[in-house]
């Protein structure tokens, strides 16, 4: 389907958070706040589009839903992304909430640090870059975690009742 908007839209609605992001001219990724234990089977395509239109106050054109799932927003592991000679990067090392939309940035930053660490190891015989890979990456991960948490706190409903 064509995107409802070329701009990224974050919405703070009484019914809960909604996010519209365009991935390509024909595919969009959309988020709706729900309870973490929500059964995805209860969300028909029709219900998803209706809920998006309500929360975004926008005539979102419908279309086939290619994939749907319930994503926990609080999932975060501040573990070191290096274990001996094993180096993890991106989502394999740390999952951050989607609210900050930082997954790709973090992965690229990890790889940049790792690449320079490997370069120093093989060219300069120095292990310093690889030894500090975890701490350098975690430093950035925590900053992103802070930002994602702030975005979440700004846009979500927080209460004991279901979001919808």
């Amino acid at each position, binding site marked *: 389907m064509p995107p409802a908007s070329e701009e990224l839209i974050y919405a703070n609605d*009484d019914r809960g958070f909604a996010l519209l992001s365009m991935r390509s001219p024909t*595919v969009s990724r959309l988020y709706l706040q729900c309870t973490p234990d929500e059964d995805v089977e209860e969300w028909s395509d029709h219900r998803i589009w209706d809920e998006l239109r309500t929360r975004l106050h926008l005539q979102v054109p419908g279309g086939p839903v290619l994939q749907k799932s319930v994503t926990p927003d609080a999932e975060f592991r501040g573990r070191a992304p290096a274990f001996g000679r094993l180096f993890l990067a991106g989502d*394999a090392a740390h999952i951050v909430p989607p609210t900050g*939309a930082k997954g790709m940035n973090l992965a690229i930053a990890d790889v940049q640090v790792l690449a*320079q660490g490997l*370069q120093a190891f*093989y*060219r300069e015989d120095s292990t310093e870059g690889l030894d500090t890979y975890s701490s350098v990456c975690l430093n950035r991960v925590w900053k992103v975690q802070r930002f994602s948490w702030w975005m979440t706190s700004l846009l979500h409903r927080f*209460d004991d009742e279901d979001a919808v």
Partner: protein
Amino acid sequence: MRTPFDHRRQLAELEYIVTSRAAAQSLAENYVGLPLRHSFAVERWPAGRRGKLRPPKIWASKGHMGRRLALKIMILGANGFIGSALTNAILRTRPWEVYGIDLADNKLQDLPKTDRFHFVEGDITINKEWVEYHVKKCDVVVPLVAIANPPST
């Protein structure tokens, strides 16, 4: 119920973001991404400094007695978005041997003609013996298996 207090606080913060240049800039900096650490380490470190480990000299394409040092790289998910690009780049720019595995090979059709690429069409959750053998055999293992490609574009 969402408390009116929380709601008003959120609205005040949203209004602040869209009216204050400083707040908008802070959001933009975080959203786009904080600056990468450029040239981390490499420029800072004295050349030739020795660390605790002695790494193999893989950058020299010719080792002792003119023998080519063929580093063995194992790529899990060699047919993926990143795996196929990495395989291609290694075969084009390095003298290394590449051992790849993936469910298909449709993204590996444009590789340079070489006998340094060894591909197995398989599933890492099934072909465990192949994986274990090559983990032992290879110098570097790059695990790039993931369900990561967008459903369609």
